[in-house]
């Protein structure tokens, strides 16, 4: 346990929160989607909003860490981190920003600016599809994580995980 790294923990916390967010969010997309949570939109909304706060906090922590590393000039690549300057990390960073900004628009303007809300909802929803597809791709690229540990392979995999 002692060599578990911070970026590793953030990665998996993030994954769990995102999975629950998508599940609860999908149930609210439309009448065709309601079966996912048995049309219990109230619970879906509740879970979605509570977890959205957690999601924003996790994002804030990661951005703060990256900013501190940027100020220190620390160029070491954090392999497990969710945001970064290239590849899938950059993609996650951008999509997360869009998710959070459109989500806040939906949250705050629900009462006042309906046009903005419907536009933000449109982006929020379509982006979800793109991000789910990208997560599947991410699983494809990293799917050696799905291999069940065998005694012979355990060493090799752990070396790769630490790379």
């Amino acid at each position, binding site marked *: 346990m002692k060599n578990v790294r911070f970026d590793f923990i953030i990665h998996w916390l993030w994954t769990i929160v995102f999975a629950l967010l998508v599940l609860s969010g999908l149930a*609210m*997309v*439309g*009448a*065709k989607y309601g079966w996912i949570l048995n049309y219990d939109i109230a619970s879906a909304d*509740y879970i979605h*909003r*509570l977890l*959205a*706060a957690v999601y*924003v*906090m996790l*994002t*804030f922590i990661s*951005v*703060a860490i*990256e*900013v501190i590393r*940027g100020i220190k000039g620390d160029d070491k690549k954090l392999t497990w981190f969710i*945001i970064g*300057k290239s590849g899938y990390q950059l993609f996650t*960073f951008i999509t997360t*920003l869009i998710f*959070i*900004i459109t*989500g*806040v628009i939906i*949250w*705050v303007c*629900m009462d006042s600016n*309906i046009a903005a*809300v*419907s536009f933000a*909802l*449109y982006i929020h*929803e379509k982006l979800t599809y793109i991000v789910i597809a990208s997560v599947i791709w991410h*699983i*494809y690229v990293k*799917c*050696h994580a*799905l*291999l069940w540990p065998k005694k012979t392979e355990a060493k090799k995999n752990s070396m790769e995980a630490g790379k």
Partner: protein
Amino acid sequence: MPDKRKLHFWQLVFVFGAITILALAANYGYGSMKQPGMMNDTMGSMMGLMHLKNITVSDLVKQQERLESIQGQAQTQNHSNHHATSGSFLKTAHYLTTAAVILLLPFIIAGSIFLAIVWIK
């Protein structure tokens, strides 16, 4: 695929692909059994029906706005009165989550602008 390491991925793909196709087939069978008269309609009215029924959240919100503007101020008055009586735990959760989201957003935006400036070559 000869790659042993991607085996589990393809397993998942096949299992869920099969589930998807079966569910879609079942849905179509069920729908056509339930509404046999639907295909008798003209194409135009069918499209109209479909679009009316394919409501997404955004349409709902738009509808709500219309309703509210029609019913005017009295309705919103009712609205807030009603929610004042609802559970205080919900209210606390509402305050905490909203405050967290709204307060952290400026910092996140500022941080990402900083990162964008530092990262761009």
